[in-house]
């Protein structure tokens, strides 16, 4: 069975550009809508790119800002200035 990298975000305006960036940058991502929240799953790895979020948001954005809309996640986290990655790869 594939290992699932996953992130759950608030379903609100602040999170929308991040959700859109995830959908664009992660082929094969699966979406589970729940009241108030959205869970995004992908086999092995899921990436949030700073540049993709900024493009949609129209301002500069730091990956740490994700904390304001984050509900849950699964996978080993690697966070840096330009990305926020959840992965089971080694």
């Amino acid at each position, binding site marked *: *069975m594939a*290992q*699932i*990298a*996953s992130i*759950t975000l*608030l379903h609100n305006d602040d999170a929308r550009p991040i959700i859109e960036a995830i959908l664009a940058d992660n082929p094969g991502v699966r979406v*589970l809508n*729940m*009241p*108030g*929240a959205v*869970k995004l799953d992908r086999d092995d790895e899921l990436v949030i790119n700073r540049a993709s979020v900024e493009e949609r948001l129209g301002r500069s954005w730091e*990956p*740490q*800002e994700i*904390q*304001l*809309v*984050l*509900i*849950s*996640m*699964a*996978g*080993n*986290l*690697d*966070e*840096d*200035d330009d990305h926020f990655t959840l992965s*089971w790869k*080694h």
Partner: protein
Amino acid sequence: MAPKKLGLKQRYAHMTRGLDWETSYQPMDAVYPFDSFEGIKIKDWSAWEDPFRLTMDAYWKFQGEKERKLYAVLDAFAQNNGQTGISDARYANVLKLFLTGVSPLEYQAHRGFAFAGRHLRGVGPRVACQMQSLDELRHVQTQIHTISHYNKYFDGISEFRHMHDRVWYLSVPKSFFDDARSAGPFEYMIAIGFAFEYVLTNLLFVPFMSGAAYNGDMSTVTFGFSAQSDESRHMTLGIEVIKFLLEQHPDNLPIVQKWVDKWFWRGHRVLGLVAMMMDYMLPKPVMSWKEAWEIYFTEAGGSLFTDLARYGLKVPKYADVATAEAEHISHQNWAIFYQYTHAAGFHTWMPDKAHLDWLSEKYPNTFDKYYRPRWEMWAEMEKQGKRFYNNALPQLCQTCQIPMGYTEPGDPTTIAFRCSEVDGETYHFCSDGCKDIFDGEPEKYAQSWLPVHQIFQGNCGGATVPDVLNWYRMNVGADNMDYVGSPDEKLWNEWHAGKVRDAV
């Protein structure tokens, strides 16, 4: 030229490392007396990683922002009388159970992480534990603030703190945390940081809070998801601690495995209360406990334990039993509370036809066969004026402290009983998981404060049920008994009649 801004990784390194020192007035082992007796071996504390790389300045900034957003919602909810817009007044009962059973655990987590942070000698985990300790304090405060609004209208809320230390079923979550906090700092980190936060907390906060949103409780979903944003950090700390311990020394593996087995089972038993909240207490259910278990344990836990297998760590013992129990646990718990509604600080009810049909659909293997007929019989007895109460005090499991109402694995018509004998005394258990935990530390669990034993020993206000309820500070006739006929129901019907009148 202006100096170049440091990157996130460099900033984090500068602000968390090199801040501690080797003590000279006292030996380090005297300053950190608790981080060796558990047998955990640490060779290099600096190998600790905090993937969030959150420094204290960024922490205050983000937490301040989260608080502003949360309190804006709480204000709006109160100003607009949000309590009148929930799906049904039955919903308020999940808040009663949450505030009496879960919120005090947030406070216990606050104290536990303050302790672990003080007693782990590496600076990386100390910083992470300190932030988590503050987060947990924020969680208990925001939960009390949120639910205090409901306390203006609904019963069963005002004595939550007093009740937490006394009421029979609240000893289940309370003793869970007492157990963790009276362990050493490493076991505490595996118990709460790893097993609870990483493996199990999603089951509490994600589908259940989504359920709050679906039932019109904007204030609870907001504190729930606000807390959960901190939980993501806590989960990361939990996974970090287990990797760190397993990487530091091969001798750590059997110790860690034993803790993972123990705390998975302890957590599973406590979360049975949440199973019941999701399947029975949300008037508009969102996701069954079984579905939540599949997503958050089978699928997410599967990915996690596949990853940890490289260290030799195995899936927790009895994970298969817990998964099989996901078909039964919410029903068996609701049956217990229904029978003891006279001694519970929230209301119970038999589900209506639509809700029964939902349960039949969600539990095709078990509900129609084992539970629906019982509910229909009890509903029929209510109609005939013979509502069923269980007036005997139940035998409790010595480990999880839940009444011994669970059934044998693979045989839902036989109650499971296990026992162990220590120093001529017999101790009883609901399951192999609880028996194993006791057998591993009998000197600890032999001292458990079991509510039923305490009542019989005369330590709970008196010998009769009214004496005990009085000692609980239960407002009899308002806090306890069925929803139907309660003051909560009367109030709700008045609000509702008012709305219909205004609309005409």
